């Protein structure tokens, strides 16, 4: 019990260290962010010179928004394509330099621009008043004039105008402008359903779950161009679209002027409608061609996904095991405080959804610890969750060992620690093992939940392949098979180890 108290005090120290550390880094991070604004801020009129000197324009974007910016698989390699990339190339060309793309989270773009990591942002960014406080914008280079209802071509006769959607179910991307528009100005009786991904919305449309899907003009047109089963109906719902502009660090008048010149030129020639959008559509379409949407071309996606899934699984299993042992011992401890803490932990983590826990760790702890990567957050959350289940597996395994074994061992003069080590654990382990095996398999599958916070594991990659190939079911099927092979092999391995252990004990 003394040892348990020691272990516990170490744990407490660790926790308090983490918390104080987090509290310390919280303000510190803010300070450094602030200082980056004041100190490292890009000096006026220097960016254009830097571009000319280095001979390249570094464009920051978040390549997850087709057809503006997305990735294309060329011989297994990622290539950035889309309307914004076409514009970037044009601007670079007019400046007489090469164009370099830096892909990052949309949220990170502003900081990257302010700290000079990128020269411009061309990422479908709307020049909101909030953003204008920290950076400058070019003129609007493209404004979506309209939203469109995407419908099944078979329903073309049924839906001809906006009012035809009265009382119908319409899907939109959660958090998108179109979603807001329908919520605000939707028709009476119109049911608005939100999904996170356009590919899921279109699958829902095809399977009859929605009567229509409201998308912005670009998205709607490119998807319709790529899928002959879809048709478009122009929406007349009120919308307040602002359009997209190029983001530039404050005080770069010369660069803004140069960019505006290129934008003017593109608009004069109507390059967006004549060249950029068709090019983007073609890039999307190449994916939908029979020869190009074969899943073998996307092997690298699945491999990357599998790698992440395995990293998450292995790390979480290790965390879960360590926590599981600690909390099982705490729960079995005669110390009431330790026991209570363990019970609270176990009951709470088993009594709340894992998905919520993952999001809570990512967003909640992310508030304290800046730059907490989603992968780490996911591993922590799944590890914490697993710890609760492992603790119960271990506890029930230990309890399943006859009390007589403890009594016999103690009567020989062995200490409690020795009793556990030489007599209880070796016997409990055989009971714990199958339960642990189950837990590992569950955990492997549960790792798919971290796709919700954007970790590039198998489920997330499946989404990417779905978007890229316009095929909803096939990628899912492949992923299902991969998970099955993974868990099947794991089961075999666990069974093999179990047999080996049983053999060794019966021989002994």
């Amino acid at each position: 019990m003394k040892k348990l108290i020691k272990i516990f005090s170490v744990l407490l120290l660790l926790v308090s260290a983490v918390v104080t550390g987090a509290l310390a880094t919280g303000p510190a991070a803010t300070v450094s962010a602030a200082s980056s604004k004041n100190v490292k801020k890009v000096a006026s009129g220097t960016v254009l010179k830097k571009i000319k000197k280095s001979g390249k324009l570094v464009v920051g974007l978040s390549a997850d928004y087709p057809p503006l910016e997305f990735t294309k698989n060329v011989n297994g390699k990622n290539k950035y394509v889309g309307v914004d990339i076409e514009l970037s190339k044009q601007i670079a060309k007019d400046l007489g330099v090469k164009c370099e793309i830096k892909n990052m989270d949309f949220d990170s773009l502003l900081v990257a621009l302010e700290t000079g990591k990128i020269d411009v942002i061309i990422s479908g960014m709307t020049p909101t008043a909030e953003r204008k406080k920290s950076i400058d914008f070019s003129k609007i280079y493209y404004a979506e004039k309209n939203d469109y209802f995407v419908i099944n071509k078979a329903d073309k006769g049924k839906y001809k105008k906006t009012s035809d959607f009265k009382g119908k179910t319409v899907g939109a991307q959660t958090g998108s402008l179109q979603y807001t528009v329908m919520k605000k100005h939707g028709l009476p009786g119109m049911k608005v359903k939100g999904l996170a991904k356009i590919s899921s919305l279109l699958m829902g449309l095809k399977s009859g779950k929605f009567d229509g899907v409201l998308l912005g003009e670009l998205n709607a047109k490119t998807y319709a161009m790529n899928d002959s089963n879809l048709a478009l109906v122009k929406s007349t719902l009120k919308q307040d679209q602002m359009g997209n502009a190029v983001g530039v660090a404050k005080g770069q008048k010369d660069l803004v002027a140069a960019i505006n010149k290129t934008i003017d030129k593109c608009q004069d020639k109507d390059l967006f409608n004549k060249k950029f959008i068709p090019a983007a559509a073609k890039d999307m379409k190449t994916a939908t061609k029979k020869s190009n949407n074969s899943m073998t071309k996307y092997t690298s996606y699945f491999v990357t996904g599998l790698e992440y899934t395995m990293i998450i699984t292995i790390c979480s299993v290790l965390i879960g095991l360590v926590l599981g042992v600690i909390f099982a011992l705490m729960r079995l401890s005669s110390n009431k405080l330790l026991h209570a803490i363990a019970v609270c932990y176990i009951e709470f983590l088993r009594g709340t959804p894992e998905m919520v826990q993952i999001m809570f760790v990512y967003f909640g702890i992310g508030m304290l610890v800046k730059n907490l990567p989603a992968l780490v957050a996911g591993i922590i959350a799944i590890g914490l969750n697993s710890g609760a289940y492992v603790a119960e597996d271990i506890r029930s395994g230990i309890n399943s060992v006859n009390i007589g074994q403890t009594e016999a061992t103690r009567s020989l003069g062995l200490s409690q620690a020795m009793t556990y080590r030489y007599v209880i654990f070796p016997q409990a382990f055989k009971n714990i093992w199958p339960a642990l095996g189950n837990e590992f398999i569950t955990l492997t599958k549960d790792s798919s939940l971290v796709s919700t916070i954007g970790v590039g594991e198998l489920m997330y990659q499946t989404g990417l392949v779905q978007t890229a190939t316009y095929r909803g079911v096939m990628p899912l099927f492949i992923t299902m098979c991969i998970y099955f092979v993974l868990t099947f092999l794991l089961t075999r391995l666990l069974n093999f180890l179990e047999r080996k252990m049983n053999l060794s004990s019966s021989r002994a």
Partner: protein
Amino acid sequence: MNSIIEVKHLKKNYGDKEVLKDINAEIEKGKVITVIGPSGSGKSTFLRCLNLLEKPTSGQVLFEGTELTDLKSDDLDKLRQKMGMVFQNFNLFPNMNVLENIKLAPMKVKGMADGEATALAHKLLKKVGLDEFADHTPTSLSGGQQQRVAIARALAMKPEVMLFDEPTSALDPEMVGEVLKTIQDLATSGMTMVIVTHEMGFARKVSDEVWFMADGYLQEKGSPDEVFDHPTSDRAKDFLAKILEA
């Protein structure tokens, strides 16, 4: 002072139930004591209080003058080495073979070298007549054999007292004899022993003292002849009459 264990006003409650009410007793060195009495009278609880597998509710247990109930767990572990215990259900360790069962405590507690412990284990196995089973698993042995291994395991710590908790109750009748013989051999060698048993014939033959226990009290103490042939308490008379009828 010749007594190795002294028990003073020992009480043990399980919740509201008083199992041991007020036990006072002394165990002299070299004596063999059998504790008899009806089921549920607290015999086993009493025995398990002697090495503190059960924590007494109140009262004292003294081993060679040392008060056990006050001891820290480290010191208690040391004293337990001097009190070997044999259980009704043998409680051999199924994750070890027979030899390892015996070697565990000498090696881990006393730090005995492997070779020495092995030699000791073989010697003890010979003593209980089971040396040929040294590398068997406990579960492959008969109940009687398992109990003899359990006795050897307890002896490996060279205890000063042996406590037997109904050592033959879980055995098939034909195996009772071999275990009783082993215990009897041990008694002849001068080991101090406390045996809780239902084997009246054996108790009579082997004991220096017989203690009759009922209703949480030690009702009667005396030589086998005194207790079996001339019981004074009604409780003892009643109990013995029933046993003899059967």
